[in-house]
């Protein structure tokens, strides 16, 4: 492998300067390809900034004149709209994560420590199938099949818990009734057609299960067998062994995997686009059951882009830039956490 060996080798079949040129050429070629990747990433950032600049530097009234979904009013100009979309994106992604993370850990444990060894690889493949299904098909299934199916459940949750501000539907009517000679105003809430942040969150959760499961499973499988056997030898039950040996060892990996899932959920477009109502006007609504109140950056770009004029495109690219920065930060943090684990673990 070392270059010293190479230089001392008898140069018969591949002798002469040609060999040297080809050797250097190939090394340079592969190095060039590698550098291309770094350049591409830099270009992504550069071009997004360049194309976003017109919208970012235009004054709000000019922008409102040219872009129909922006207005020169408080809360409806570019930055507040981006902020409300970031809010919607974070809410929906967090919901997805809150649902997907525990289930994924369970699946990872099932594959690594509960299922028979022979089946483990096959079961992992079954979970990977969930990742293979294109997101547009999740969107179609979510919009036509899943939401109508869970609508009664959503309505029940809303009816039972609408005293909680984050589980309250949209006010569709106010009724005034006379109780003991006093007017009592009651509000009637509705979850509409069920196209709410919670539905989008559930479908996203299904989509990010595989990535969280795959990374967590790998980490769980790397738990030193000695730790596990020691725990069992001390009389631990299987769950206690997992709590004492597997989870402490795998914790950084679990956190990293979860953040990778978050990164995926933040950037997911089509499923959210097809599930949320197209006429959603994003607001800072904390209720995950309020219809037409949330939208995500990615879904909003997909919705507005086909009909956008040049300034509209610029404004949408500014949103894309915000999404890029957020997902980049989340992913870099996730990778850093995961790589830190592999450096310090004695198991590898």
């Amino acid at each position: 492998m070392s270059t010293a060996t190479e230089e001392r080798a008898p140069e018969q079949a591949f002798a002469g300067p040609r060999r040297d040129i080809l050797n250097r050429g190939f090394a340079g070629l592969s190095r060039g390809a590698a550098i291309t990747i770094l350049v591409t990433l830099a270009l992504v950032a550069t071009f997004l900034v360049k194309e976003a600049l017109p919208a970012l530097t235009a004054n709000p009234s000019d922008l409102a004149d040219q872009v129909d979904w922006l207005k020169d009013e408080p809360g409806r100009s570019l930055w507040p709209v981006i902020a409300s979309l970031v809010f919607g994106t974070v809410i929906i992604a967090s919901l997805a994560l809150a649902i997907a993370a525990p289930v994924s850990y369970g699946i990872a444990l099932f594959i690594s420590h509960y299922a028979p060894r022979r089946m483990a690889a096959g079961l992992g493949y079954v979970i990977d199938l969930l990742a293979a299904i294109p997101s547009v098909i999740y969107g179609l299934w979510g919009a036509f099949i899943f939401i109508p199916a869970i609508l009664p459940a959503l309505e029940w949750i809303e009816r039972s818990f609408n005293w909680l501000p984050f589980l309250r539907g949209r006010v569709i009517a106010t009724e005034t009734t006379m109780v003991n000679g006093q007017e009592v105003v009651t509000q009637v809430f509705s979850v509409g057609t069920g196209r709410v942040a919670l539905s989008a969150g559930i479908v996203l959760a299904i989509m990010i299960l595989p990535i969280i499961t795959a990374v967590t499973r790998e980490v769980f499988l790397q738990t030193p067998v000695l730790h596990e056997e020691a725990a069992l030898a001390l009389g631990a039950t299987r769950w206690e062994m997992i709590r004492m040996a597997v989870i402490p060892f795998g914790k950084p990996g679990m956190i990293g995997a979860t953040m990778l899932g978050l990164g995926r959920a933040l950037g997911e477009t089509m499923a959210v686009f097809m599930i949320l109502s197209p006429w959603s006007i994003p607001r800072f609504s904390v209720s995950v059951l309020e219809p037409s109140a949330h939208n995500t950056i990615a879904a909003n770009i997909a919705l507005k882009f086909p009909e956008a004029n040049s300034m509209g495109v610029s404004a949408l690219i500014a949103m894309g830039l915000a999404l890029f920065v957020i997902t980049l930060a989340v992913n870099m943090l996730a990778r850093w956490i995961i790589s830190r684990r592999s450096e310090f673990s004695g198991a590898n």
Partner: protein
Amino acid sequence: MAAVVEQGTLTLEPLSRRRATVDRLMQAAVYAAFTLALIPLVWLIVTVISRGVGRFMIDSDGESHFNWDFLTQSMRGVYGGMPAGGILHAATGTLIITLIAAAISVPIGLLTAIYVVEYGRGPLKRAITFFVDVMTGIPSIVAGLFAYALFAVLAGPGTKTAIVGAVALAVLMIPVVVRSSEEMLRIVPNELREASLALGVPKWLTVLKIVVRTAFAGITTGVMLAIARVIGETAPLLIAVGVADSMNWDPLDGRMMTLPVYIVSEYRKGPQPCNNPDVACIADITVQRAWAAALVLILIVMALNLIARLIAKYLSPKTGR
């Protein structure tokens, strides 16, 4: 071991009923988690199959018998609730765009993997490994915006052609190809490289003819899985390529339809009005088209996955590890 001792859990009480119950409960929870994940998978696949065959059962006169019209027609001249129209143009578009994306990303991805495994050292190697991981997390819609912005500068604003979409998909595909090729190159035994170099074979030939050849099946598997992943990408194509109703063979000129975008555009058309009883008309034909296209897309993706796994299983060399 140290962790266990430090936590002070070294002395475990005798197995009490409580501990046994907790153990059982957690076992049940873990089994439940796995079952829970299977529900949407089965539900979705069954739905796509059962709803997807509907469009194949209608011919252009609105009669119901099995036919292949959906695969052999484009959407040219199809309007309203006409029981016609298919995915020929979309399937062609998907094929063209995916092939171009693969042609861009496979050489770059493979060469980068070769650099990382065979040549790389120091900060550049670390930077590449790290940023390839980061690149995996680029949202697909951002890749689409990037390609659009790039071509807006290169070819004028508003350029929406297949090549723009292919560049967007390539951005998404490269890190996947690098990752999988890297893993495959790594498991090639060092003895093979050393034997080749000892025979006086130059390094570049060793890499190409020994290392890459040994890992070839694995690399092919990785590339096919990467294709399977980008073939269903919708958002970047919606932005960078747009929609079209007719065939377009030219990746450098004009918009081109693709299968995933076809699904969305049929979905967004919604039910069609059927007012004239003399004309064959099906109100939910658009929905049927969307499901049928979803069925075709899922079959393509599953086939790619299956072929990839079969290649990995039967063609990979036995490394003895």
